[in-house]
C-alpha cells in the first residue's frame, strides 16, 4: 500500500469516526424521552413516572414565584394540565422545557386570580408552616431576576445540580452555570446587607 493510500484511508477513518461521534447523540433517546413517547401511546403509568422525575423541577419553578403553601396544589395542577395537553407537544425530547413553561404560566395565572379574589395575606399561612430563616432566605431569592431565582431555588431548595437543572428545564448548561453564579453573587450581596443568616 502506498503512503498516499495510507494517509487517505486514515483521513477517511478519521472523518467516519468523527461523523459517527457527532451523529450518535442525535439518535440516542433519553429515558425521559422514551417515557414521553409511551405517554403519547396512551401509557398512564409512564406519565406517573414522569411525574416523579419532574415534580421537583415544577415545585422549584413554582416556589420561586408563589407562596409555599400553595405550591403543592399547583404542582398537581401543572401535571394535570400537562396530561390533558400532551397532544400539543411536538417533540418528546422537549418535554422538560414545555412543562417548565406550563409551570411558569400557572404561576402567572395564580397571581392574576389572586388579585381578582383578594385572598388572605401570604404571611398568615407562611408563618404557620415554614421556618422563619427559610422563609426569609426564600424572600430574598424571590427578589432576584426570574432567571436567577428559578435556577437558585432548583439548586439550593430542590438540591439539583447544575447539569440536572439543564437537563430537566431544557436550558443549556452554560446558561444554567451563568445564572447560578450571577444569582449567587447577587444573593450573597443581599445576605450581606440584611444579615439574615
Amino acid at each position: 500500500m502506498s503512503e498516499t493510500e495510507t494517509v487517505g484511508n486514515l483521513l477517511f477513518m478519521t472523518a467516519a469516526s468523527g461523523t459517527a461521534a457527532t451523529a450518535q447523540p442525535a439518535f440516542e433517546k433519553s429515558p425521559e424521552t422514551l417515557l414521553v413517547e409511551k405517554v403519547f401511546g396512551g401509557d398512564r403509568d409512564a406519565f406517573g413516572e414522569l411525574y416523579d422525575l419532574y415534580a421537583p423541577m415544577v415545585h422549584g419553578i413554582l416556589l420561586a414565584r408563589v407562596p409555599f403553601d400553595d405550591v403543592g396544589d399547583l404542582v398537581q395542577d401543572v401535571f394535570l394540565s400537562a396530561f390533558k395537553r400532551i397532544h400539543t407537544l411536538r417533540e418528546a425530547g422537549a418535554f422538560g422545557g414545555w412543562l417548565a413553561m406550563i409551570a411558569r404560566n400557572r404561576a402567572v395565572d395564580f397571581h392574576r386570580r389572586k388579585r381578582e379574589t383578594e385572598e388572605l395575606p401570604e404571611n398568615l399561612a407562611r408563618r404557620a408552616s415554614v421556618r422563619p430563616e427559610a422563609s426569609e432566605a426564600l424572600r430574598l431569592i424571590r427578589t432576584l431576576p426570574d432567571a436567577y431565582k428559578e435556577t437558585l431555588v432548583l439548586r439550593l431548595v430542590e438540591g439539583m445540580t447544575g447539569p440536572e437543572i439543564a437537563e430537566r428545564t431544557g436550558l443549556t448548561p452554560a446558561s444554567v452555570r451563568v445564572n447560578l453564579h450571577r444569582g449567587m453573587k447577587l444573593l450573597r450581596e443581599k445576605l450581606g446587607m440584611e444579615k439574615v443568616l
Partner: protein
Amino acid sequence: MKEDYLWDKSGEVDAEIEQLEKTLGSLRYKRPAEPLPLPAASRSLFRFNSNWLAAAAAIALLLLAGGLWLGLNRAGSDKLLSSGPPPPVGPVNTTAGVSRMIQSVRSSERNVAPPQQDVVIQIQPAVNRSQFVAVKFREAKRERELRQEEIMRRGEFAKEQLIKALEITSEKLNVVQKKIQGAPDGRNPIS
C-alpha cells in the same frame, strides 16, 4: 474549587452555600402519599403532528390553485364563445349583400370545398336562403374549430403552469419537512 460546589456539588464545600442548602432544604418537594389523580383519557390519539398540518396545508393550496385555474379557464372560454359573429336574421335581398356573401363563401370554402363549388356560386348570382344558411353554417363550424384549438392551446399552457406550481409546492414541502425534522429539542416549548 468553591465554584464547582455551586455547579455540581463537587470540590471544596462552600460554607455559605451549604448553610443555605440546610436552611432552604425544609422547603424541598415532598412526594405526596396519594398518586396524581389523572383524568379518564388523554387525547393522545389525536396528538398534534406538524407533518399532518403541512400535508393539509399543501392539499388546501392545491385545491385553491386548481379552483382558480378552472375558474379562469372557464371564464376565458366563455369570453371566446360570446365574441363570435351574430347569426343571420331574415332574408338577404340586396346585391351588395349577395356579393359580400359570395366573397365570404369563397374565403371560407377555399380549404374545405372543391373548386367546382366556387364556380357554381359564381355563375349563380341569385343565392337563396338555404344556400346562405349552409355557407354560414360551414363558416361557423370552421370558427368553432379554431376556437376549440385556441381553448386546447390555452388548456395545455394552464396545465404546464399547474405542473410547475405543483413542483414548487412539493419542493417547499420538502424544505418544511427537513426543517421540522432538524429542529432542536426543548428550546421552544409550547405552553
